[in-house]
């Protein structure tokens, strides 16, 4: 592989082809094909229940944990099929981090919440290095100043918005290649939201980022690519600016102008 080819390959991180996701007999995602860029932030938008979370969860095989969920089609990460039998799911999830729609900190101390991932993957040798990783992750998530004096207090005693930032810190602490964020700012105030968006700007380029959001302004602000989903279909996917200024599909236009939701 030449350097040229490697560069070309690395610019597309995830390739999904004809992906359908079923819950039992119910089809939640219908034959979606999409390329996720390494260097860009991709936003998934669409009305509630259209399958954004479902599709996002198929990128790190979190749908495996739902007993009757089934994924068809192919999804590759760096050209390797993540649903092939020789894919190590545990490693995949360390490489593809996730911030869930509902904040779900561990019922452990703030420090432990962030340190857990690096510890189980052996990413830090010794306490000092671990503390460094924790501080760096909390700083990036914009939470450090608020919690630096109470790292030993419970993560669940934080406010909803603080919990969500803690979950972001936990996800970036394992230094993933891709970060999937399912409405990371839905519980945050404008200031914390701005901080998350700053964080996304800062992380862009180093990580491939996919973010689900219901906030059109946010999608427009943070993303370079936008995918609009409706009833399990990918209706339109393209440059964010193009989608928001000149959507090709009538449904996209109706949605982003708020005519239905």
């Amino acid at each position, binding site marked *: 592989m030449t350097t040229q080819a490697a560069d070309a390959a690395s610019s597309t991180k995830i390739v999904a082809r004809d992906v359908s996701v079923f819950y039992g007999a119910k089809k939640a995602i219908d034959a979606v094909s999409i390329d996720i860029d390494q260097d860009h932030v991709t936003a998934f938008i669409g009305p509630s229940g259209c399958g954004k979370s479902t599709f996002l969860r198929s990128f*790190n095989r*979190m749908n495996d*944990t739902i*007993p009757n969920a089934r994924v068809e089609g192919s999804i590759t990460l760096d050209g390797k099929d993540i649903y092939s039998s020789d894919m190590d799911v*545990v*490693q*995949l*999830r*360390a*490489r593809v*981090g*996730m911030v*869930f729609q*509902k904040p*779900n*900190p*561990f*019922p*452990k*101390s703030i420090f432990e919440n962030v340190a*857990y*991932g690096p510890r*189980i*993957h052996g990413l830090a040798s010794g306490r000092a290095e671990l503390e460094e990783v924790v501080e760096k992750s909390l700083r990036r998530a914009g939470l450090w100043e608020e919690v630096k004096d109470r790292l030993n207090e*419970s*993560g*669940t*005693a934080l406010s909803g918005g603080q919990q969500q930032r803690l*979950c972001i810190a*936990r*996800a970036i*602490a*394992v230094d993933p290649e891709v970060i999937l964020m399912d409405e990371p700012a839905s519980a945050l105030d404008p200031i914390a939201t701005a901080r998350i968006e700053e964080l996304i700007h800062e992380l862009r380029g180093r990580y491939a980022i996919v973010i689900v959001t219901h906030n*059109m*302004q946010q999608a*427009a*602000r943070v993303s370079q690519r936008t995918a609009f989903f409706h009833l399990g279909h990918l209706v339109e996917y393209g440059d964010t*600016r193009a989608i*928001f*200024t000149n*959507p090709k599909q009538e449904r996209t*236009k109706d949605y*982003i*102008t*708020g*005519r*239905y*939701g």
Partner: protein
Amino acid sequence: MSELNASLVPQLPIVGVDAHEPVARKPTDWRTGSMQGRIRRRYAAERRFRLIGAGAVVLAAAFLAFLLVTMFANGLRGFTRTEVALDIDFPRSTLIVDQTAVQRFGEQGLAGADLQGVVAAAANARLGPGGAALLSDGAWVEVRRAILEDPAILSGVHRFELPAAAAIDVAAKGDGAADAEVQVARLRERGLLSTGFNGQFLTGADATDPTAVGIWGAFKGSLLTMLVTLALAFPIGVLSAVYLEEYAPRNRWTDIIEVSINNLAAVPSIIFGLLGLAIFLNVMNLPRSAPIVGGLTLALMTMPVIVIAGRNAIKAVPPSIRDAALGVGASPVQVVFHHVLPLALPGILTGTIIGMARALGETAPLLMIGMRAFISSPPEGLTQPATVLPVQIFLWSDEVSRGFVEKTSAAIIVLLVFLLAMNGIAIYLRNRFEKRW
């Protein structure tokens, strides 16, 4: 960004709900009769419920207090014994023992010495004809122990406080037969009777003479049996619960297993005794009456309780915690041991307490595997014949001799203390793990 603001995106997205005309609506009047009545009834229901709850608690507490008071009133006497003072003049007795030999050779120096006869003779001489019958059969053992401790007493007259015979003991505690009462009165007059702590009861095992019985044998039997039960039922129960909840696929087989386990928890305990008899004794040829067999049998009985409690506790751990751990790349085993089990442990321990408490009080299945034998020495190991506290209580309560009545109550106190200690440890552990975040 400004060009976007000027674009199609509105500043405040309109929520896509049809705007209905507001329906004209009368404000709720909370002061009407029916409204007030409803509020009053709500308060009354609240009060009623609280009263019923408090009543139930008071009733339960009263039963418990009654049980404890009667138990202790009867049982505490079992820990004391009546002692008769007896002077033995060794140089003038028929005892032919060399003091220096005892000093040098210990027990061997006393070999062949008829201490029993010496004590009987001294008793007949000092306490009047029939004096030997006033002393417990085992009284000479104490004399022997005293000599071994300090052989110097062989050189002169020594006063011993020896345990009284069962009839005298019962009479001295105010519950005896008429002739014994007379003898007690005579001994009291001469100032020879006293009450001492019954050390024998805490260190000995079963005996035919109620003044010589001890609870230590049964206590140790219970301890060993419970250790076997815990060591088997806890890990197997918890691991089964984890496997069934976290790993096993949901299909017909796991359904059958679930139903079987639930039924197993409801099977009468004597059936487990028969099972233990058939498998552990008849097929596997394990020793009869041994704590290992008792422990195995009780483990069979306790395990389903732990499995059920464990599964419920594991089920109660929110799935979002599992998602969170899986999401940072924890393996399923790490999810279980780092997150699920620590959160489920208090619930699992509660189930374990219940199961173990039931096992500790269990008599029927142990009767089936022969733990009801008369065992006069504490078990030395898991394979030695032993009995357990509830069986010992059952055996003593069956005795005709009156001396056993208070021993039975005393044994019940020991059983309750054992139970409380066990539960105390479990509750302490539970609270430690329950450090909720």
